[in-house]
């Protein structure tokens, strides 16, 4: 069981309000997409839920337990893992060592399906290569696999497809499928509309820090206020 619930969440930096009044529930095993124009506060939302930054207001509960304001390592230990928008690995060590650290720090042992994932993305063949010598796409996938390697019940993915070639984006689909097979719920922040429409039965729309909509894509994307929010934004699915 791993229900993640967010209530009245807000984040301010000095005078700048990044988002406010964010409330939603991510049920156990569910898949939720989060979209919105640049600067809408999506990455900060992940930062706050994952404990990297404390919220200015609101509550975060995991399985009914209040985890608001807990630091990142505690949230991770409770089973919430996140990936990063930019490639984020331990650059100077090998792929093998990166995975080893993720498993070691996650303290839940190697999750089932980890080796299969490595095989699938072609990382098994490159275990001893230094991680920052890998091509961009593979580094991104390594980051995703590392998040999975901590054995989470909830995964927060920050633009997993960003920077990937068209052909590589299906890896993200495969990754999400693997993760869900393992029983985890997933929240994906993305700009790639195709991917969102393909994968997510439910999406949230964030615009200028405000939650505009929460529902199935077909419905949400047809709403005039959602469309208007995107008219000003130049970034769409490549």
């Amino acid at each position, binding site marked *: 069981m791993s229900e993640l619930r967010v209530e009245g969440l807000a984040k301010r930096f000095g005078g700048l309000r990044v988002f406010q009044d964010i409330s939603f529930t991510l049920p156990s095993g569910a898949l939720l997409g989060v979209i919105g124009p640049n600067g809408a506060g999506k990455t900060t939302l992940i930062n706050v839920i*994952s404990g*990297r930054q404390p919220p200015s207001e609101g509550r975060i509960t995991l399985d009914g337990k209040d985890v608001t304001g807990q*630091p*990142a*390592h505690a949230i*991770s*230990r409770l089973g919430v*893992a*996140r990936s*990063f928008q930019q490639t*984020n*690995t*331990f*650059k*100077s*060590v090998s792929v*093998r*060592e990166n*995975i*080893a*650290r*993720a*498993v*070691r*720090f*996650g*303290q839940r042992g*190697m999750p089932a399906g*980890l*080796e299969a994932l*490595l095989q699938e993305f072609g990382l*098994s063949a490159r*275990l001893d290569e230094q991680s920052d010598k890998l091509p961009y796409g593979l580094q991104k996938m390594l980051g995703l696999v*590392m*998040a999975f390697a*901590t054995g989470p019940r909830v995964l927060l993915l920050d633009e997993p497809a960003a920077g990937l070639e068209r052909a590589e984006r299906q890896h993200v689909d495969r990754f999400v499928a693997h993760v869900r097979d393992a029983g985890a719920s997933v929240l994906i922040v993305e700009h790639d509309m195709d991917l969102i429409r393909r994968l997510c039965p439910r999406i949230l729309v964030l615009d200028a820090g405000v939650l505009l909509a929460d529902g199935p894509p077909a419905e949400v994307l047809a709403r005039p206020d959602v469309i208007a929010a995107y008219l000003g934004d130049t970034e769409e699915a490549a």
Partner: protein
Amino acid sequence: MTLIPKSRFLGGAEIAAVLVFVAAFAVPAITKSVLIYSILNQALVGVVAAQSVWIMLRMNLLSFASPAFMAIGGYTVAIAGQYEITDVFAMTAAAFLVPALVAIPLGALVLRLRGTYFVLVTFVLSQIMQLLLFETPGLTGGSNGISGIPPATIFGTELATNRQVVLFACGIALFATIITACLTRFFRQHFAAIEENEILAESLGLVVWRYKALGFVVAAGIAGLAGYSLVTMLLTAHPSSFDSGTAVDFIAYSIIGGRSSILGPIVGTALMVYATNLFGTHGQYAQGLYGVLILVVVLALRGGIVGTVSTLLRKARGA
């Protein structure tokens, strides 16, 4: 497929480091030169303090607190000496434990904050220690310090001659090196992860501040040992020995020697102490040399002397 690599507990560098100090014991048997004893003793004190700095550098943290913890260790021994307590084993334990205990609450306070705060606060700590030493004459002798400290005793025998003091310093340095090596070897992946990418490490579940605190506490104990060694060498505990400016020296030894290997502070201390002695009566210019070398290391030779040499060796072998 064995995904998780099993690694040896003992690394080559750590073994070499320990051997260096085992070998150092031989020096008093080889020579009677008072000058060599003096330089060696300075280096043996300096290398322990440099190791204290190096432990935190493994996690990308720069500590200026080594003089403060050295003072705690040194004055603890000096005060105990006034009560005729001089046994080397008891005093070694005290010189390590008292600063380490003081470091626990300090560490808990400072290490949850950004790395930048750590630097500033440790700097302020060494200023505080200086002031404390001056303002507590009842305990520490104030600006006069505590002089005439009785020599260390081992199994009842006094370590009073130059030779014996050098051997004592070798022993302290060996002990400190073993502790440093064990700590940094056992936790090397944790420290390395924190050094390279703290945010990622924390997001994977590593309780980063605890490792930083552990490092800080052990580093404080190691610095305390350096203080014991210094006070024994001088037979005096005086505030000027623990001036906050000396932190810069130990930082220089570590950075110039090379922060990636336990051999770094050893090589750095040996070379810098030797170089300082070459300046003779103009010893204060040594800091200018340190400054230039620090700039060179940071701009070009990131691995310091040991790092650069090992890179060259690797290239020579690979070529």
